């Protein structure tokens, strides 16, 4: 692989921008931004696999990110013993009932020949099965949710180290992607888009309303961390010794230290993913994926199993997004279903991929960095711009007051402006996918 000078320049500029934040604002802020840039990059990488490699128009990024996020709760929170004893039996029965219902449906379907009758019977059985499962499920969820609802009211998790939630979050998202893919991948471009959008809304509705599982909108806060707590560091001897020898203030140093720990973890994950992704993209596999994206009919005629390949890449991409979702929840220290909205978790990620240059892994990483950076820094920048623009109006002008008041909304404006500018001057993204033109 050759080094792309353009990439070096952009990444260099990005590093400079983060350093500028470090010097002008604070290092702690720079690291906060960096950490989220890293997570955004991973999410963008996942989406890029689906769109950039295979042309799958997935507008359900949010759903997969949320599924990854819920893994953090399910893995790391301590189990709630009372809830298990209150609803555990019924929940077990629910699982059995569900298994039985599915088994019956499968058996009946096997026994019957293809045709409208089979579809109809399946439909009826599915509805009956739904009713049957709810006989056990309703009391279970009710019992669980009534266990001290303001503090728990859910089953809790496995009480394992939260870092395990990352791969598990990826797996959960992959499982969901498998199901979604089985249903929806037959649809074409924009229809797949609306289907995935819808499915992500469904996932979110479930996370918001199935309180027994995730506490729903009551949120789970105070998740455990894979890195030390600042407060503890501030009273730990070796750390105090360290700060003293460096001549740094312990409070600031502790928050910088924690963020560096996170950053190292994230960089490791991103590094591994990038290695795998780059290898894959520049292999015959990547070539096949591009061929499929270009022309499905023809790829099919050339012996490529398009459906399976689409499913494969859809699952892989979703797993990466799920992984990033779990990482994000870990960093936030809380799982709040209300957070997830398409603007932030789907469109913004799309912007990252496109601005970075779809089809190019490095582009996605760059896009993740740049767009997150702008998203955060647009707020003060908007204020500053507004201040500048209205400085001629005089201190007491009501117009100026009104405009300054609305300055936060300039964030959106600035974001849009930057997006349009990048797109204008580099329509295929900052780092366009290499098309080996001679």
């Amino acid at each position, binding site marked *: 692989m050759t080094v792309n000078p353009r990439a070096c320049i952009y990444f260099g500029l990005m590093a400079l921008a983060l350093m500028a934040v470090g010097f002008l604002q604070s290092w702690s802020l720079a690291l906060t931004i960096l950490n989220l840039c890293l997570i955004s990059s991973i999410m963008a990488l996942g989406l890029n696999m689906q769109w950039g490699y295979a042309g799958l128009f997935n507008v359900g990024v949010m759903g997969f990110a949320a599924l990854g996020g819920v893994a953090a709760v399910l893995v790391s929170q301590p189990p709630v013993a009372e809830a298990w004893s209150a609803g555990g039996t019924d929940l077990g029965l629910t699982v059995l009932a569900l298994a039985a219902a599915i088994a019956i449906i499968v058996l009946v379907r096997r026994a019957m020949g293809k045709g409208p009758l089979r579809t109809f019977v399946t439909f009826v059985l599915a509805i009956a099965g739904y009713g049957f499962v709810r006989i056990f499920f309703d009391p279970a969820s009710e019992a669980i949710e009534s266990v001290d609802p303001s503090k728990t009211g859910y089953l809790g998790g496995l009480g394992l180290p939260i870092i395990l939630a990352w791969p598990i979050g990826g797996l959960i998202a992959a499982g969901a992607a498998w199901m979604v893919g089985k249903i929806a991948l037959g649809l074409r471009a924009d229809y797949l888009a609306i289907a995935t959008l819808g499915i992500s809304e469904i996932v979110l509705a479930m996370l918001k309303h199935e309180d027994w599982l995730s506490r729903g909108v009551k949120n789970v806060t105070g998740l455990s961390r894979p890195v030390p707590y600042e407060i503890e560091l501030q009273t730990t001897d070796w750390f105090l010794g360290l700060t003293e020898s460096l001549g740094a203030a312990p409070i600031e140093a502790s928050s910088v230290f924690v963020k560096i720990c996170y950053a190292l973890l994230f960089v490791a994950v991103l590094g591994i993913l990038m290695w795998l992704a780059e290898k894959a993209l520049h292999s015959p596999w990547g070539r096949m994926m591009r061929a499929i994206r270009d022309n499905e009919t023809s790829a099919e005629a050339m012996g490529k199993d398009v459906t399976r390949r689409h499913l494969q890449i859809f699952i892989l991409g979703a797993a990466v997004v799920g992984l990033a979702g779990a990482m994000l929840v870990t960093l936030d220290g809380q799982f709040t279903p209300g957070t997830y909205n398409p603007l932030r978790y789907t469109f913004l990620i799309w912007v990252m991929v496109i601005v970075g240059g779809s089809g190019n892994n490095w582009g996605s990483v760059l896009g993740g960095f740049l767009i997150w950076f702008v998203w955060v820094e647009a707020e003060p920048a908007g204020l500053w711009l507004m201040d500048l623009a209205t400085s001629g109006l005089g201190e007491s002008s009501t117009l100026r007051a009104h405009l300054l008041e609305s300055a936060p909304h300039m*964030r959106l404006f600035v974001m849009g402006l930057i997006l349009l500018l990048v*797109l204008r001057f580099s329509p295929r993204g900052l780092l366009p996918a290499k098309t080996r033109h001679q």
Partner: protein
Amino acid sequence: MDDILNAIVLLTNFVIVPALAYGAQLALGALGVTIIFGILRFANFAHGDLMAFATMVVILVTWVLQDAGIGIAPLPTALIALPVGILAAIAISLFTDRCVYRFYRQKKSAPVIFVIASIGVMFMMNGIVRVIIGPDDQSFGDGARFLIQVTQFREWTGLKEGLAIKMSQALTLGVAVIAVAALFWFMQRTRAGKAMRAYSDNEDLALLSGVNPDRVVFYAWVIAATLATIAGTLYGLDKSFKPFTYFQLLLPIFAAAIVGGIGQPLGAIVGGFIVAFSEVTITYAYRKFLLYLLPAEWVPDGLVQFLSTDYKFAISFVILVVVLLVRPTGVFRGKVI
């Protein structure tokens, strides 16, 4: 007999009228999206914010008119302000096209680039609207609010159940029907309409037939902006104006456009009603309805609700997905990006 009438009125009041009105609102929005999609071939994410922008202008003008005491009671004053809003929406649409989209058109960029550009426009318009009128709720409706009111209806008919029809609901429905008919006629029958369809089908070949692309693009934006203004204003009259809600409206609008078959005006209308009716009928609790029709002991204790309203959006999307699986390009064979 009374029971049956009561049951019908109940269903009409809580299911049919609201779903019709909501469906018509979605349909008007979806028409605008579908026009841009059909002709310029991209999903315009800025449409919701275009609606917000246009409505904002209408509101500002309405306020001025209201202050001056000009009105057309019982119809809302906003209707007089509508033309100004339409002009403003057209102006800003053409302006963005000029500054943003035209460039990509000339470069023949991929549709997704347009989509992303429209997200950029969406962000910017989002900001502008909030800076000018603020993020708050604004009410600007006046004139008669109801065509039929619940209490009036009960008095007239002597039934236990009431029926309400709002002026804004009736207006929306009427306008939606007229708009789609006019659009259909325009696209299928007029020269300009045919030119637009030709352009959307095969741009190069349209040039070779002498179609002036600038003209087509101009018409497309004029129509889309007009529809956006009408949709936004009627929606604002019925509910209230708030920029954030207009942005949120985008999702069901897109769903409606796509389920109907994107690029198809008639599809947008049908899609709007499918989304609206699925939301309302599936989450409606039929207990009271059944109580009128069945002996009390036959009616189950629960609310007789297929699904909780919590899953309202989920269910409308499930229906969408099912429709798409059965008819992969929407009800009226839509286009593919």
